[in-house]
């Protein structure tokens, strides 16, 4: 039973962990120049992601990043950050990283931070603003769709 308020400070991941984290996040959600969107490894997004990792999950993420480094080195002799996108993706998928619990934790945080980034929201034709106070428009719709239902006799049951 964790307390959702517990967050860690940015500096609690080492520099080398941060480098692997950036590459890993860009592997999971890559930048796309045709859509003009950053990847999840974009510095502003990573900063929010790191701030959102709970104390309890920090160790899990750090260990996961070590594992990614070790697996990449074992298979290609390279460091994860030295690989190109295709090689990193190959590593990510071939080792089934998506199923690892640290990726589930990190992935969920990454999604929250990535999809609320103003650049990403704008690319989805959304205004980068909170719902309140402006709200949104919703069309009334065609109420004549109800006509066939109105014609039905009552469908609730009589009580003897």
């Amino acid at each position, binding site marked *: 039973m964790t307390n*959702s308020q517990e967050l860690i400070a940015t500096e609690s991941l080492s520099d080398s962990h941060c480098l692997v984290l950036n590459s890993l996040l860009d592997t999971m959600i*890559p930048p796309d120049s045709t859509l003009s969107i950053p990847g999840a490894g974009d510095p502003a997004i990573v900063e929010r992601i790191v701030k959102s990792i709970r104390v309890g999950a920090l160790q899990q993420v750090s260990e996961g990043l070590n594992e990614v480094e070790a697996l990449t080195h074992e298979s290609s002799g390279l460091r994860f950050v030295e690989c190109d996108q295709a090689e990193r993706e190959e590593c990510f998928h071939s080792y089934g990283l998506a199923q690892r619990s640290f990726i589930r934790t990190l992935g969920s945080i990454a999604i929250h931070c990535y999809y609320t980034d103003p650049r990403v929201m704008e690319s989805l034709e*959304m205004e980068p603003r909170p719902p309140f106070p402006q*709200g949104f428009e*919703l*069309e009334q719709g065609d109420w004549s769709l109800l006509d066939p*239902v109105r014609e039905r006799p009552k*469908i609730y049951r009589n*009580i003897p």
Partner: protein
Amino acid sequence: MSEDIVDVLIVGAGASGAAVAWSLADTKMRIVCLEQGGWTNPSDYPSTGVDWENRHWGSFGIDPNQRGRETDYPINGSNSPIAVANFNAVGGSTILYAGHFPRFHPSDFRVKSLDGVADDWPIDYEILEPYYDENDRMMGVSGLEGDPAYPPKPQIMPPLPLGKSGQTLAKGFNSLGWHWWPSDTAIATEDYDGRGKCINLGGCYTGCAQGAKASSDITYWPHAIRAGVELRTHCRVREVTVDDNDFATGVTYFDENGVERHQRAEVVILACNGVGTPRLLLNSTSPRFPNGLANRSGLVGKNLMFHPYALIVGVFPDELDGYKGPGVCIWSQEFYETDESRGYLRGFTFECTRGRGVVGTALTGLGYGHIPWGSGHHAAYRKLHNRIAGMSAICEDFPEEHNTVTLDPDLKDSNGIPCPKIDYTVSENSEKMLQFAIERATEVLKASGATDILTECPIAHGGWHLMGTARMGTDPERSVVNEWGRCHDVKNMFVVDGSTFVTSAGVNPTRTIQALALYVADSMKKRLTNLFD
């Protein structure tokens, strides 16, 4: 330390506590309500931030164990496939509820006579009808007259817009000749009683910053307080105390500073919901009630009903409403009444949902394997963005004594009070009903144009309807409270929350919980001179 005696002491300031407080206020009795939570500030609600979906998983989450506010109590749900969802504050769980607001049907009170299952209620639709009407006015209900699934009921405000999602689903229902109707909602579509009308913020289940959604902190409570009710927040009740004549003498509680106090009262009313009320009763042991207060029937905490939910959504080729507007939209009660050829008894409501936010869409896509990590991510996401809509099936749950709220031997809240443990299994009847509902939902979603269908069954975090754990009845051996909410064993103690439900019906419960609370209050007012006879 003991305080002056009050006439009426209410425990819990949620949907039912607010309604009963307001109704009793016109008696001019001295009424005090103790609530373990505080007031929520609408400017703190998630929809005031871009990251509203994220904050839904934080301090405004629906799971008290994960949310872990000081005002929450943990619940051991390890032996239940469905986790309790609630909120502890002035307004109770209505702070987070979706505001889907159906009434029970006449048949829902007579399931034993009609279908030979469970029990009949000792009251019926006709008795509750005027209280439904009164509650509708107090909460401000939006909806459309003429639904063939219901006896006539008054329209207070027009329904929520159909929007793109509602129209798309409605066409599907029409093509199959199935019933649908705009949902009755506790969401104001016009300015109402000092509250602004709905501006389609979305995320109603994270708190409504606009105040359009009728949470009881902004509907009943301002009226009750103006009428003289005293509401004490951050006061957590540990137990109800009794004398040697089986009368409640008051409650022992921890005040906002953690100081233990005793509040004496002539009458005690419990409104802590279907988990909080049995917890409090089971914690209130004494030589005359060694198994918990008002529990001579042994039924306190038994017959817990949740409404097992199935979620069925489709992916549509065209853009729908997505993150815009209240989740609730239209309902269908085509499969509400019993048809034995389906292989189960009773039925369900389809509560249609408009769509989901960007984060919810991405997490859904990843969870169901529709969005990959890596290069295909963006193209796959865009196929789902604003294109997911569907429904949940709210299945009638039967009262079964093995589904229970008991006290966990180890788990305690921040005041050291023992906490609830849930033991619950989805019945065979429910399993069949859920399966049938998924098949029908798939059919109608495809008829509406959906390509892929995604399901979750039962919704694991969907224990938001808490019913049956202090059931109503005329026989003291088979029920905890009588037909007007008074405990059989303790004649000056009443229960007004969903604990008293005899059966669950196949609809969301809050409109009925509040109508019952008003009915209990009225029954008390009519008997003020001989209330304890």
